[in-house]
């Protein structure tokens, strides 16, 4: 998008990974561009910019969305979780470790979106079977074709979470 000189900037506060960010931005700035270009959170990726590939998936108020199709100014006060908010190298999120164990990535570009999407999928609670996970994860494209490992990693985490639940 082309920014015009006289565009009216709007102030918006968005909580990203627990930190409030008050920014003054043009209305055309998407949540993805806000994260990447304004907040330097480059973990969320731009693969198509049209909501087709899922590389930009983040959790917005707890739900997985394509951040490339969200105008940031429309989400005043919202809460965003990106890949940077999930774990660290020293303390990986269970899905991150499961992705490594199952070699669920090759070039890694789609991976942040895959992991955020998988968390969203688990929170939604609709996908229970192998085939439902495959269907539910089909909004996240992977050209390297790591799909089998991705589904295995999600199943792995879902199983360990449900067994933990049973133990409680």
């Amino acid at each position, binding site marked *: 998008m082309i920014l015009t000189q006289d565009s009216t900037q709007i102030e918006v506060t968005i909580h990203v990974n627990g930190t409030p960010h008050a920014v003054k931005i043009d209305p055309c700035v998407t949540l993805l561009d806000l994260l990447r270009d304004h907040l330097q959170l480059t973990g969320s*990726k*731009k*693969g*198509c*910019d*049209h909501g*087709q*590939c899922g*590389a930009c998936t983040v959790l917005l108020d707890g739900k997985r969305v394509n951040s490339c199709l969200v105008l940031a100014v429309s989400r005043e006060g919202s809460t965003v979780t990106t890949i940077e908010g999930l774990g660290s190298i020293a303390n990986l999120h269970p899905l991150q470790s499961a992705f490594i164990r199952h*070699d669920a*990535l*090759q*070039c*890694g*570009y*789609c991976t942040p979106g895959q992991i955020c999407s998988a968390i969203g999928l688990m929170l939604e609670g609709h996908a229970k079977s192998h085939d439902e*996970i*495959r*269907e539910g*994860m*089909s*909004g*996240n*494209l*992977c*050209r*390297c*074709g*790591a*799909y*089998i*490992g*991705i*589904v295995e990693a999600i199943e792995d985490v879902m199983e360990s979470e449900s067994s933990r639940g049973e133990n409680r």
Partner: protein
Amino acid sequence: MKRFRYMKAVSVREAIGILAAEPGAALMAGGTNLVDLMKYDVSTPTVVVDINGLPLHDITEQPDGGLRLGALVSNADVAYDPRITERYPLLSSAILAGASGQLRNMATVGGNLLQRTRCSYFYDVQVPCNKREPGSGCPAKTGLNRGHAILGASPLCIATHPSDMCVALSALDATILVEGLRDVRSIPFSEFHRLPGESPERDTTLEPGEIILAVDLPPLPPSMGYKVEATYRTSPENHHPMELFASTVVWGADKTITVYDKTQSPKSVQIYLKAAFLLFGRRVRVVSPYVGGAFGLGLRPQQSVFLAMLAAKALKRSVRVVIPRDQMYTLGYRANAIQTVSLGADEDGHLHALKQEAIAATSQYEDAQDPMLFFSGLLYGCENVKLAYKLAKLDTISPCDMRAPGAATGMFALESAMDKLAYATGRDPLDLRLENYIDYDQMEHRKMSSKALRDCYTQGADKFGWSARTAAPRSMRDGRDLIGWGMATGIWDAALSPLPARATVTLTADNRLEVTTSVTDIGTGTYTILSQLAADAMQLPMDRVTTRLGDSSLPYNPTQGGSWTASTAGSAVQAACEKLKDKLLKHSHRTDQASLTSDPSVEFVTLLNVAGKARMEATATITNLPFGKKFTSATHSAVFVEVRIDEELGAIRVTRVVSAIAAGRILNPLTAQSQIRGAAIMAIGKALHEDAASDHNLGRCMAHSFADYHIPSNADVFDLEVIFVKELDTEVSPIGTKGLGEIGSVAVAPAIANAVFHATGYRVRELPITIDRLLPGLPLRE
């Protein structure tokens, strides 16, 4: 009829002499065309030379197995000769399709070739005709011209040659033996008749005075029990790595320029930028530690880096250029192609003739080639192999190598044809391949450095359960689903890069090893395997090894691609480690160095301490000269596929794939399995979805996004099992690896196409196999 002199020639030399001396002379054999034309005054010779007395009346066997048809043999005698009806039935039926019994008894081989056109304007001396009367005009162009030329016409003439026999002779690659004043020569049939061009009055390339002695039919391949021939089409495909192409040029104040680029070759981009922008006075560094997927699209410097540097140089500031998804169609594509495959086999299913002809797309400005037919002569034993690769220059951009370039397209055609042959000969597709198995390179006449393809066939078939397949199409069904099982063979190059490669390893006093080389990691696991090789060589745990890649300032390594990076960079790293060990061992007090290097309890860092050094490094270069090779090396695969096709909707699902791979030493089974799976998934896209189609009126690719260019998603992928068969190869590379990036893709699309045939009984010979193309195979049920 105009008056003329009549002469009888008694020898060929005499006939030639008369022809050369008398410009108005005409030779007469059967006379069926000449006399006819003379009656209309279309032909008005001053002398008619009767050549029926010349000794040109025989059909004779040739030493090479071909036949020579004397110029004066009658059409009827050719058509009914048993040698013709048995060996060249095409010629026999072409002759019998024309004229009448009487005319065929009179007309001759030579005369048939020299017939004039049947254009009615040519025959009518009351109207103009450039062929009959040069310069008079061509009323046929705007007149009655239904029977005239569509191709090859000129502004002066649109007439065609009338012979059916000549069409057959042309198809049979006949040659014409002619004699003139000076010599005897042979003219390929396709060069005998000429297009009208500027001189439509000349029908042939015969020189004045030349006469036809005979037509030579080339020997045919040994007689075939079975022959299959068909044409296969593939669509252009785009690589579409998930990442966008992006280049950031950081314009340093101190004459340094750092370029963060998406590339499979930081060194190539550096060399390109320096040369294209004349940046020799500056330090240009190109960095690409995490490339994304690329799949071949990053083999060349792309527009983003060119534009970013152009702008940075003009503005003297840092610039980033990102190419959006819809413009990534303009960076490159897998060439679409039209291929014709002909296979001939005997009653036992043994191949005796294999012909594959490909026409591949390229741009107007570049002859971009790929190895579409490189491998077609390597898989099956066959004494007659003919491969022809042609480029068609189209108004498009240049193609750009995409995963398993060429081979994935070429093997689709060949392996579809093999499946067709299996059905034609009543054989199981796997048995047919095993019966034609060879373990040497019949094209270059040399050994293979290894070839465990037979194990791929047997282990793959076993894992898949192939023996439970019922041969007949439509014979396996599950409710609404038609089930199809298909298989195909794959092959790809196994080689080191043709350019030398370097790597440096550095051991530091804290017992850490650093590996550096300029090569990239496009998701193939280069970081992992290089660390692994170095850790093995230096007897260190993996977490002590750090690998740095993707930086033009690191030791030179060629472009990542061609499935050669593991072998090339891996061999360089291993050689550097050996060198480092030698250096370290010089500081050892022990004399039995051989046992020292194999002793796992020895830590090389102690030798570093003995030497009193904080760090020690070694650099090795490996070279791979492409000539004088004693062996041909290749990776192989056998792929077995199950498809389920909803008979009412036509939706195709690839529900099971078993891919058995022979690729030498496997360094890391986990990442290797991911390579093969990913390549197979990309090939599912080729087989069923991907078509970067252009609108021919707008001249524009109309696939702008993932909405109109489908790549496989998670829901498209079901079971996909990978087997690595054992294959020891001591010749292919110093570390015994053959490369894995491409081989996983090659056989999957043909295996799917063959499975679709098995499911439906209908062979779709155009990729992708979309529902509309499959429709004829899904007859509507009541």
